């Protein structure tokens, strides 16, 4: 797909902006921190920025976690501060609220982009906000694209009559799904509450695996049942099912849906990302379905069939690669639109996303924006350039893959 870096020159700007964001997101605690990167206190060297939870004893004081120590006043011989010596969540003692760009705080430290209503350094918040916004964009886009490729691929490849299984298997799988739901989920409905995230994930994974094994086993067993009744072949109308699902999702207004779920589930960021992913795969699936349908008609697919390749092998190794271009375009597009959606919701205060770019911007009211213009302009510039870069990259790939649609 990407033959050489030279070919990417038209989108070099967009790519470098996105790479910069990734680097900033990864290096955020090093770029901006209210604890020094390294300091020499007493006889030892400490690296508080890298180990904020480590208990440290300095100058006859009681041992405390390093994040609780006021490092600005700590009696240390040499301190190496990050580029921006301001904290992300904590309150910096010397800061004042609503300071314009290029002002200095009482410790004579420069606020490059000013401070916010809550006396935090704006650039620091933007740097940490990069993490949230990129997470939202990438996670949602990945979810969208994988759902779209999965459903679109299955619908296009198997159509309505290409996946044939015996009636016994249909009964077995159905029964297996019902019983798994009843025994692994319904009867244990309360075991997923008030637990740690990793525990929850493990429990869910375990239940899904159990469901898979149980359903598969039952399907296999019923498939082996003798007799004409169980042996009769039936075609699964996968295409119709997926099409119906897409039609339903397309009719539901996604914003109203997200608002509704947000109201019920308490504005959780993860739930919002899941919802965004679940409602926006339809467009991708439609394109992927068309790609796979086209591939399905091609000669090499026929050759594969003649050579006796299984359906799944044909799907994954021969049909789906044709949809890869569509997937790349949709991924780039999806990152941008997810970031926009998240910032819009955060701006309205309808999702709790910590400090994403949108929520920094939404923390001031419409009237205050006139006097505090920097709080409005800089986060929005970040959003604008990111979305523009994503759109640019996706447009570039779309033209590259499908020269007909371009200039």
């Amino acid at each position, binding site marked *: 797909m990407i033959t050489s870096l030279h070919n990417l020159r038209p989108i070099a700007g967009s790519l470098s902006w996105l790479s910069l964001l990734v680097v900033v997101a990864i290096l955020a605690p090093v770029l901006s921190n209210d604890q020094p990167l390294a300091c020499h206190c007493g006889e030892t060297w400490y690296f508080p920025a890298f180990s904020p939870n480590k208990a440290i004893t300095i100058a006859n004081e009681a041992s405390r976690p390093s994040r609780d120590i006021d490092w600005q006043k700590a009696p240390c011989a040499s301190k190496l501060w990050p580029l921006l010596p301001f904290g992300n969540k904590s309150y910096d003692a010397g800061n004042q609220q609503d300071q314009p760009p290029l002002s200095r705080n009482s410790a004579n430290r420069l606020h490059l982009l000013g401070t916010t209503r809550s006396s935090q350094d704006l650039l620091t918040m933007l740097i940490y906000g990069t993490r949230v916004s990129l997470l939202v964009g990438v996670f949602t886009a990945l979810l969208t694209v994988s759902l779209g490729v999965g459903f679109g691929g299955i619908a296009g490849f198997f159509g309505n009559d290409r996946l044939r299984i015996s009636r016994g298997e249909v009964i077995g799988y159905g029964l297996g799904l019902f019983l798994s739901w009843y025994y692994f989920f319904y009867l244990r409905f309360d075991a997923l509450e008030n637990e740690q995230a990793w525990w929850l994930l493990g429990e869910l994974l375990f239940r899904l695996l159990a469901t898979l094994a149980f359903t598969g086993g039952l399907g296999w067993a019923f498939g082996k049942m003798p007799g004409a009744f169980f042996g009769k072949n039936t075609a699964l109308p996968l295409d119709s099912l997926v099409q119906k699902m897409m039609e339903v999702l397309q*009719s539901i207004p996604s914003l*109203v849906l997200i*608002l509704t779920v947000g109201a019920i589930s308490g504005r959780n960021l993860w739930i919002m990302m899941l919802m965004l992913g679940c409602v926006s795969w339809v467009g991708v699936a439609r394109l992927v379905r068309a790609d796979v349908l086209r591939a399905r008609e091609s000669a090499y697919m026929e050759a594969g069939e003649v050579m006796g390749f299984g359906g799944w092998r044909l799907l994954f190794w021969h049909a789906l690669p044709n949809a890869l271009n569509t997937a790349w375009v949709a991924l780039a597009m999806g990152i941008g639109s997810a970031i926009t959606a998240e*910032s*819009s919701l955060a701006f309205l205060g309808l999702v709790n996303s910590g400090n994403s770019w949108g929520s920094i911007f939404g923390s001031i009211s419409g009237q205050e*924006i006139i006097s505090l213009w920097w709080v409005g302009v800089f986060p929005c510039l970040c959003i604008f350039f990111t979305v523009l870069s994503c759109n640019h990259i996706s447009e570039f790939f779309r033209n590259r893959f499908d020269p007909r649609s371009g200039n």
Partner: protein
Amino acid sequence: MGKFLRKRLISLLITLLLVSLVGFALTAYPPETLAFDKCHNEFGDNQNEQKCIDKLVAELGFDRPLFYFEIASLAEPDTLYKVYPFSLRKVLRRHALRSGNWEAVQQWHLSLSAARQALRTSEPNPAYQTLLGAIQTWESSLHAQDFEAYRLRVIELSHGPDIPNSLSSLMANTCEQGKVLLNTRQGWRTYVPRIIWHGTSCRYHQWISRMAKGDWGTTLNHLPVRSEIMRMVGNSAPVVCLGLLIAVVLGTWLGVASARRAGSAFDRISTAGVFALDAVPVFWAGILLLVLLANPKGLHIFPIGFDNIRTHPGENILRWVLPLVVYSYGGIAIVTRLIRLQVLEALNQDFVRTARAKGLSTQAVVWKHAFRQAWVTLATIVAGLIPALVGGSIIIEHLFTIHGIGEGLEKASANADTSFLLASLTLTAFLTAVGYLVADLLYVMVDPRIRLLPTRNEA
């Protein structure tokens, strides 16, 4: 055509049914603290508060079964749905599933409730508070071991010096019931699934039949949802429709103009401009315009606010400018891009070349031949923009203080007003589905090559 239409209409009905199921399932269990808080704020004393909660619960149908049927365990009773709040329902279901003996669970919980009520109504005493806390943990304890441990703790506390004899004996009764519950477990019943048939008295049936009759429920403030939505849509509609019209007209013109001069400076500038517009978040554009052009301290050209839009529509035409600009720029970007592609593709095709060769003017070729396909695109775009008519204007109405449907949705979401949210979700879905149906019909009418129904061999 008739067969196609009939088939399409049936499909539309199924889609709407599925949409209503999805929406209903999502809003089935709203946070119950909302109803409690609301009643607590309205009424100070306990008795009226309980009455208010009961009324609200009956109004919202929380004491009815959810759906026509229910898959449950043999251990559960038929009428667990009558229990409110939801958290208590969950606790009871948990105990029923653990012990398998619903009779014992019921006896135990009734006596526990009686004891708790007695503790609550007597005068405040720190010992009572400790006992109440112990009862609470006992009630929600999960495993048999914990259950026994908490039971012993409650026994110990209820024999404390500050507890009068009458209460002690009540508690002793409860603890005895708890012991019975532990000793009469019928675990096997839990593992037998069964179907409970509820029939048409269920919440879903009530809601959907009322919805079909035009009664869309009441908001949390006891106002009919229907008139609320109508009022809000009335406030939004003028701006939204005008914005849409501007987007379609301007976008079409721009798209066609740049397609005709493909590759020229005009085309390149308009494409780049449209591209940049597409990336501007609505809230940023809105705020920027507000700060620059509606700033009381600076340039104050455009006044803001749409309180009297319907009574005096023409009174202050300047009020319309900023919302319309913000509303339409995104649409302009979408329409321009799609129309440009569509027309560009059409201009390279044989039938256009033929038309040109026949000596038709460029205008006629573009608008009559090349644009024919684009009508379908436009219809699809407009159908796809219908959700925006209802939901997409939230930010714009937030910024420009228009008291429309977007603002209503924002407030409903903040208050978890499920009947309002559910009604608007279903209605928007209905409008969208109808819009796509119309677009499909247009598609068929415009392009005679399209087969109405897929043939058997077509996937």
